[in-house]
């Protein structure tokens, strides 16, 4: 394939944090690395599912084999980073006398922990006013030592300097950013992801694929995000089906973890678009897990966006292994949408919004649409999205 001429904004920025450590079994490096960061008394943030699956014990074992002291395990985190649990988790850190955190979990756990560390760093106890501020860059200072072990290959939250917070009372999700909220160190240890159930493996990987695809097609795409995003797409397309066939294939799991981190680095710097805007609203109002909501909306938003910059979708088709030689760019771009649909089908992701009770009449979809239109990511969609467009996308995704 001849590489197309691609334009990008004449000015862009790129932030590169955190350090990443990759190895099957890399958790054994935790003590050495945390000591370098200055942490001694550790609180682990996680969820009950990971405790029951024995995954947290694998990390506790690594803590116990080091000079670190485990002073508490907070396992109450549930789907989405919720304001009440952020505040409660902050109090827990202080009660335990901790001076550092180790985070074991997926996006909800990692985002909750980011917010907790901001409160610890600032010496305050309520995250609600900070979440509303959206950007916490003014006078931001480095935060206490923070190491994360992602246990899903999806959100990339271990590398992103933002968190999505659910206000469960107002039923709204808000993305909030802080330059030091991501961990000082992300340890990618694929052995911690082996017990992840197939369904969650599939839709979290689709989350990562969505990050990569939106990062490559957003109005803010740039050559660095293109490089990371396109290679993440290649890896996910190749290794997700292998992991679904052989869940204990640590090497394939490792590739997915790496791709997830790459996609995270890509989208946090170039932003996302209509898939995320519509998915955040679906999560807030209907409780659909973020990765699954992204997966459902992805092909519909892609099809809507094709006409705006087809050459970028051609790159996606190519990265997904479609033989585009001899195709017109229009046909090759459409092939990218089909490749996504084929991948979803092959891994058993066939849900639509209907399965989650999303209504089909326009009147009932107005609030959902309004929420999506107020999302910070909607402005970065490559094709200008009007209210009516969003509403129609929801109808198509039913």
């Amino acid at each position, binding site marked *: 394939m001849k590489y197309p001429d691609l334009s990008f904004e004449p000015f*862009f*920025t790129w*932030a590169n944090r955190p350090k990443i450590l990759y190895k099957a079994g890399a958790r054994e490096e935790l003590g050495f690395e945390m000591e370098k960061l200055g942490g001694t008394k550790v609180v682990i943030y996680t969820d009950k599912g990971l405790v029951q699956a024995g995954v947290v014990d694998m990390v506790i074992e690594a803590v116990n084999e080091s000079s670190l002291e485990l002073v508490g395990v907070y396992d109450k985190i549930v789907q989405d980073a919720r304001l009440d649990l952020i505040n409660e988790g902050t109090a827990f850190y202080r009660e335990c006398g901790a001076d550092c955190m180790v985070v074991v979990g997926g996006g909800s756990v990692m985002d909750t922990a980011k917010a907790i560390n901001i409160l610890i760093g600032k010496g305050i106890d309520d995250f609600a006013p900070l979440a509303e501020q*959206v*950007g916490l*860059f*003014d006078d931001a200072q480095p935060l206490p030592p923070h190491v994360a072990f992602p246990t899903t290959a999806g959100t990339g939250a271990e590398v992103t300097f933002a968190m999505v917070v659910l206000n469960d009372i107002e039923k*709204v999700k808000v993305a909030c950013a802080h330059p030091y909220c991501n961990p000082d160190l992300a340890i990618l240890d694929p052995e911690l992801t082996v017990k992840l159930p197939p369904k969650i493996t599939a839709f979290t990987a689709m989350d990562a694929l969505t990050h990569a695809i939106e990062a490559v097609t957003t109005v803010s795409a740039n050559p660095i995000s293109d490089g990371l995003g396109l290679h993440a797409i290649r890896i996910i397309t190749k290794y997700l089906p292998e992991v679904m066939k052989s869940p204990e294939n640590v090497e394939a799991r490792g590739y997915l973890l790496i791709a997830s981190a790459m996609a995270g680095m890509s989208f946090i710097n170039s932003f996302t678009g209509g898939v995320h805007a519509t998915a955040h609203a679906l999560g807030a109002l209907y409780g659909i897990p973020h990765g699954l909501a992204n997966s459902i909306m992805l092909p519909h938003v892609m099809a809507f966006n094709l006409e705006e910059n087809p050459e970028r979708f051609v790159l996606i088709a190519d990265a997904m292994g479609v033989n585009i030689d001899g195709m017109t760019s229009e046909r090759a771009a459409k092939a990218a949408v089909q490749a996504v649909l084929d991948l979803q089908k092959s891994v058993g992701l066939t849900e639509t919004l209907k399965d989650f009770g999303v209504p089909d009449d326009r009147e009932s979809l107005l609030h959902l649409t309004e929420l999506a239109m107020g999302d910070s990511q909607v*402005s970065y969609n490559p094709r200008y999205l009007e209210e009516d467009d969003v509403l129609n996308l929801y109808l198509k995704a039913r």
Partner: protein
Amino acid sequence: MKYWQDETEPVKAFVTLWERVSQDPEFIDGMKKVNQLIWFNYTADGPNCSFHVDGRDGKFIVAPGKPADEPNLTMSLSADDAHLSWANKLNPVMAITRGKIKVKGSATGLLKLAPKLKKVAVYYEQVLKDLGWEDKMAK
């Protein structure tokens, strides 16, 4: 300042822009939903370089200077960056992450208007033309 001769020019341009925007039913509706008193603070470029928009309780009042009441949201940036922002030449999220736009208060409401920036830019271009300031068009 790169685009302005003195602190009165940006205030004149932006207040005129918002007065124009306040005639558009789409924005009237949007500001009602935002329901905030917003202070656009450019005082780093001059003590009087600011204006405010009061969209509380169904109002849509635009006036120069700092509001008498405590604003729900203060957006602080340079008058040049504000010019780029209204011309839709400044990525607002990127500007916040770089500390070029400082946000105090709840920005979630105003985010709902972010998708309208393209339309605001069209108004802004016309306002600059009407004021005889075509030379200030953002490149």
